[in-house]
């Protein structure tokens, strides 16, 4: 336990046992290019943490740090430490497959697999080696109920996941994620492709899910952050010009309970952004 991370938690009155993930001095590189610089923050357990900020500020990149999705990109590299369950997720002996099994992800564009609804949900359990039909049936029903989709699809589980509406597809993806009972669910702008009614349903769903899961959500929609999140992290773009070449990167500007960020921001930048003066 370094002094620094204790202060992050203590400064925000988050008891140590209520911290799900801690990021310490995390920088993300794509090749030589540093996309995110020196982020230190905590993800509180059983809370919704929202990442906001202008396009290109590194909030999605930072989200993907937590379940090592950046590993899939050629040349991407993470410096610093991400502590989960007392272990650094970027230790060389940690298998990213295990990380992603504990820290699930829902993507911006609903991406159900081109399979039936049942097979979409059963995909994760089957990856883990569960073959028993009865067990799978129970998992599918529980997950669909958990994602508030069961009533709409229970008679038609053999239908292709792609035949559902956009909002249903996204709830299917959430159901798929909770089927393997992760600790943390990362959501990368989950409502940006949905209409307002579908968005509202997902938001209600998130408030229910947070009883059991820790949720981190990236959003462009500040009202959404206000409506659903307990904590908000504001990221912003930094730029300098070296030899007539502009270099940009993202930094964490402010991280605090959502109320504080929106009502009494500590930084002028944050105040400018949330009042719509830029971004």
């Amino acid at each position, binding site marked *: 336990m370094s002094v620094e991370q204790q202060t992050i938690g203590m400064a925000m009155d988050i008891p140590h046992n209520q911290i799900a993930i801690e990021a310490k001095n995390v920088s993300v590189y794509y090749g030589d290019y540093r996309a995110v610089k020196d982020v230190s923050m905590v993800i509180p357990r059983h809370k919704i943490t929202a990442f906001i900020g202008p396009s290109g500020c590194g909030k999605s990149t930072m989200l993907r740090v937590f*379940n090592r*999705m950046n590993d*899939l990109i*050629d040349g991407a590299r993470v410096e610093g430490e991400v502590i989960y369950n007392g272990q650094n997720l970027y230790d060389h002996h940690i298998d990213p*497959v*295990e990380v*992603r*099994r504990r820290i*699930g*992800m829902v*993507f911006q*564009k609903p*991406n*159900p*697999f*081109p399979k039936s609804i049942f097979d979409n949900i059963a*995909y*994760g359990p089957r*990856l*883990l080696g569960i073959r028993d039909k009865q067990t799978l049936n129970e998992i599918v029903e529980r997950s669909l109920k958990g994602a508030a989709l069961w009533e709409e699809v229970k008679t038609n589980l053999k239908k292709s996941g*792609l035949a559902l509406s956009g909002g249903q597809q996204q709830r299917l*993806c959430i159901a*798929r*994620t909770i089927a*393997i009972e992760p600790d943390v669910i990362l959501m990368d702008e989950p409502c940006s492709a949905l209409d307002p009614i579908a968005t509202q349903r997902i938001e209600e769903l998130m408030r229910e899910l947070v009883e059991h899961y820790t949720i981190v959500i990236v959003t462009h929609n500040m009202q959404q952050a206000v409506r659903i999140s307990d904590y908000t992290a504001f990221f912003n773009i930094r730029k300098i010009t070296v030899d007539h070449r502009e270099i940009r990167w993202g930094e964490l500007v402010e991280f605090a309970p959502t109320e504080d960020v929106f009502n009494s921001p500590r930084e002028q930048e944050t105040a400018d952004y949330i009042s719509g003066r830029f971004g």
Partner: protein
Amino acid sequence: MINDDKSFKKRLARRNMYGSISATFFFVANLIGLLLIAALFLHIINQSMGYVVYVNRVEPETLSERPLEDLSEEELGQLILQNQPARIRVYIRDYLSRVSNDEFAEATVGAILRGREYPPEWGNIPLRDLEHEQQLELLYRNMNQRQMLNLVVENIVQPTAAKSWRLFESLFHSDDIKQQAAEEFPNGDLKFHSWLNWDFLTRSVTSSATTTGLKTALLGSFWIISITAVTALILGVGAAIYLEEYASDNWLNRAIEINIRNLAAVPSVIYGMLGLAVFARALGEITSGAVFGVTDSNGRTVLSAALTLAILILPILIVNAQEALRAVPSSIREGSYGMGATRWQTVSRQVLPAALPGIMTGVILSMSRAIGETAPLLVVGASTFIGIDPNGPFSKFTVVPIQIYEWTNLPDQTFKSVAAAAIIAMLFVLLLLNAIAIILRNRYSRSF
């Protein structure tokens, strides 16, 4: 300037004119292609059927007073005994024998006709020690009237095509043809004949245009394509998966990829030389089947040919499979990885099933290319004339395009019609394969 209505109208007319000129050009290009294909088809169909004058070596009337069709097995047998007593043994060998040709000379009746009908007391007597009459009895005990009739017609009457006409001549000048045929071949029998027929497809190759068939070449093509398909599919899809899903983006993998693309443009005869050197010669012990106990063969086998064709279509197949894999949206991969799937689980459960229709389309199209290949197989060692149908990977082989080439090279003009019939049969197979490819693509292609 920009709002000048008059010049806008003038320019619009010109813009539209350019558009219609291009459209006309594209249409004409299509039309030329269509006309060429139509000409090709007409030419081949024109050759594949028409009037034929058959001349018999021996007129049936001189053999029997009644029409041959009405004679019984015994009567037909007597005709063979009178005309070709020494060949009865040959017919037994060709149509009834259960032993190989090498063993036949010494074999007993019991061994040769195992499971067939023969007087039990002859069982231990070598066939050659029987009288011709006795041999004949074996023949018609085991053959029905139709088979005996065929023997008599093919071997004694021996109708041969003395002259053949093409389809359009036959349709539009039939009177001239009838007159000409009557003058030149007073004993001839003028018939309208389609060279492409069921008998042609199911008979083995012979040296006469009237009795030859495509079965040998069709079987050769079938064996080769089957082995080619399995080999190329496994190697090609494997290589494509490695390059797309596993290989990192470094200079070595880029070099491999560029080379594969270049290999697709290498002339096929070069692959033939490779196949001859590597498969037929260096690996001759394996491709001849010697290590598996096959004796009467060298390396110029179905297996060598199939492996050569597999190498030939591999580059096309790999590039195609890579494209099919690349067309699977990355959101599917991300979704799978995000669920905690390993790389292999992601590839085998998501990427490969999604890419399969595209891969299969490519496989079938490269199969059509392999079916039509001639040059590399000539180099590897296709037999120009084989009387034995290929029956496995270690057989000697010929394939349909080589058979067509052989037939068109023969001096006898009637073989041109035989070749045309074979071309139609091959085009039909190709069309069938392409149709399957299209159906697969339309049926299983998904939108994401």
